[in-house]
């Protein structure tokens, strides 16, 4: 993975980070974009934004990531940011069962507010706290398969799988978009590896034909949204 100049990229992807408050969304983001972790990171109010450029199969991809507030009271403003996102990382805390139980609710939110074809990855964070684990890997993996979500476990604290999570979701999307979908459903040989379920149903044509971007919006975005912009 290499970074190039900020403005040189082939594709632009909008990704949202969602999940209960305190599961570690902001730390996953700062680990990915700045390689930083902060035990005392502040609560997210509304949304926060960051970008990172990565290389994937010879293409330069710029990810625009929107980190949202997990507390229920902010749902109204955060859900407005789902639109136009091509991927979502739905994060729970492996040491807190209720954050996993709430994943259902978050999927419902996505169904209501996000584009139909959004690619979702379930992310179990805080694997460094192995002795406090409350959500079994198998349980989460089973849930992901049933709901056709990609799945990975991470630790923002010790960096395990953080870059992988972002890169893999971008890859999944990118492969779908480039019509290079290889259905490697059986490729779930360990926690460290992403286990991709069946491709999400109803991938619309714009996902299959990503357009070379000039400005900060895709052709599809332009046709969907009146105003140009990066969100």
């Amino acid at each position, binding site marked *: 993975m290499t970074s190039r100049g900020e*403005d040189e990229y082939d594709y632009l992807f909008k990704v949202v980070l969602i999940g209960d*408050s*305190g599961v570690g969304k902001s730390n996953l983001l700062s680990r990915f974009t700045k390689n930083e972790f902060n*035990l*005392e*990171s*502040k*609560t997210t*109010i*509304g*949304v*926060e*934004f960051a*970008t990172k450029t990565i290389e994937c199969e010879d293409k330069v991809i710029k990810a*625009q990531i929107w980190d949202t*507030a997990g*507390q229920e*009271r*902010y749902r*109204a*403003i955060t859900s407005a940011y789902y639109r136009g996102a091509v991927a979502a990382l739905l994060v729970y805390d492996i040491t807190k069962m209720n954050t996993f139980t709430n994943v259902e609710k978050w999927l419902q939110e996505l169904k209501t507010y996000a584009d139909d074809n959004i690619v979702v990855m379930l992310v179990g964070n805080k694997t460094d706290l192995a002795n406090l684990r409350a959500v079994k890997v198998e349980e989460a993996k089973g849930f992901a398969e049933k709901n056709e979500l990609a799945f990975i476990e991470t630790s923002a604290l010790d960096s395990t799988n953080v870059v992988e999570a972002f890169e893999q979701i971008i890859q999944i999307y990118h492969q779908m978009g480039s019509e290079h979908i290889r259905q490697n459903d059986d490729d779930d040989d360990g926690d460290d590896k992403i286990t991709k379920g069946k491709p999400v149903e109803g991938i619309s044509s714009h996902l299959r034909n990503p357009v070379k971007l000039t400005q*900060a919006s895709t052709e599809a975005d332009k046709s969907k*949204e009146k*105003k*140009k*912009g*990066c*969100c």
Partner: protein
Amino acid sequence: MLERIKGVFSKKKKPVEKKLEEDKIPEPEDDLNTSSTSQTFSNSEKRHYQKLCLLLSEPMIDLKKLRSEAWYGIPMCYPQIRSIVWKLLLGYYSPNQEFQESSISRKREEYIDCSRSYFPNLAYSEDLTETNLISEDMSIYEVDSFKQIIIDVKRTHPGEAFSSKISKSMLTRILFVWAFKHPASGYVQGINDLAATFMYIFLAEEIDRINRESEGRKSVDIDLEHNAYDLKLEDVDLIEEEKIQHIEADTYWCLENFLETLQENYTEHQPGVHKIIARTEQIVMKKDKELMEFLEAADYVPSKFVYRWVNNILSREFNVQQLIMIWDKIIAEEEDITTYLPYVCAALLLKFSDCIKSYAERPEEVILLIQDLPTREWGNEDIKVLMAESYQLQCLYEFNSHLEEK
């Protein structure tokens, strides 16, 4: 700059009319006059400080005069003055000195009783875990509030002093009691930062008192260059338990009173926040139509990005010492916070107008700028200018809007 603007727009904030009699001025004056020739403190600031002392020494404190005097700012070297002024202006302390003591102790007891009913055994040194705090007989509302508060208290740190177990357990109790008493909104993220700001003010006051005592300084000695708001982690351990309880109770009541006019900010859909943002947008539109149109065209109407400014009363955009200077004015405002805050937000946004417009082709930069303002590099003068500019906007548009209505 401040003086000039205030000179031009003196309609609203009239200087205190009462002519000060020299012999009534309390002791600090001598120290002020002999203190080192500091360039950061003008003579007018010294005068304001003296007037504040004088007003506070009256048996029946004139809140109106106190308000207009406090509006000019309170020196950072004397946290005791700020603490009393805020408590008075927030309606926690009674202006009648005769009843003040008894009413304070009644309020403190009321808080401590309520807090004890939830935390009968919680020592200040205890770790705040769910197992320590959550019991089976709690309602779902209580359990959910607790869970959120525990996660957030860990992440609330306006300064080093907040890493101590004592501060954390104080803050946990304050937030929980508040949540319990305000089920209409419940605990909402952001309130933790507001509570922490009050706590910071009162901790600084007590630590300053302790330091003065140990250094043998009189409470009236004052060195305008001293900054009493630079708290260290170990400082908090110096405070005795009874004082800690008082600070906790005082923080609670100030938070309670401060939020009274802001209730709607934290209820479902946060209508209060949206109103303040809408007002901010109106002001920016009047003052700098081009900026507003630029933001609208780029689909970046301020509402998306100044949300945190309003929700947290600017506590995330400035460090705690800068914030204190801003809140001095916000609290001294005659009308409630919701009328003045939009002017501060508008002034802040307007400060970056040129910069924002220069990002025409790079809308991402606009977001990155607004969500992480370069205010860390600001000095005290910059804050004063910002507040002067907010006041200028208020004079321009509030009076005009009154005229329009008529």
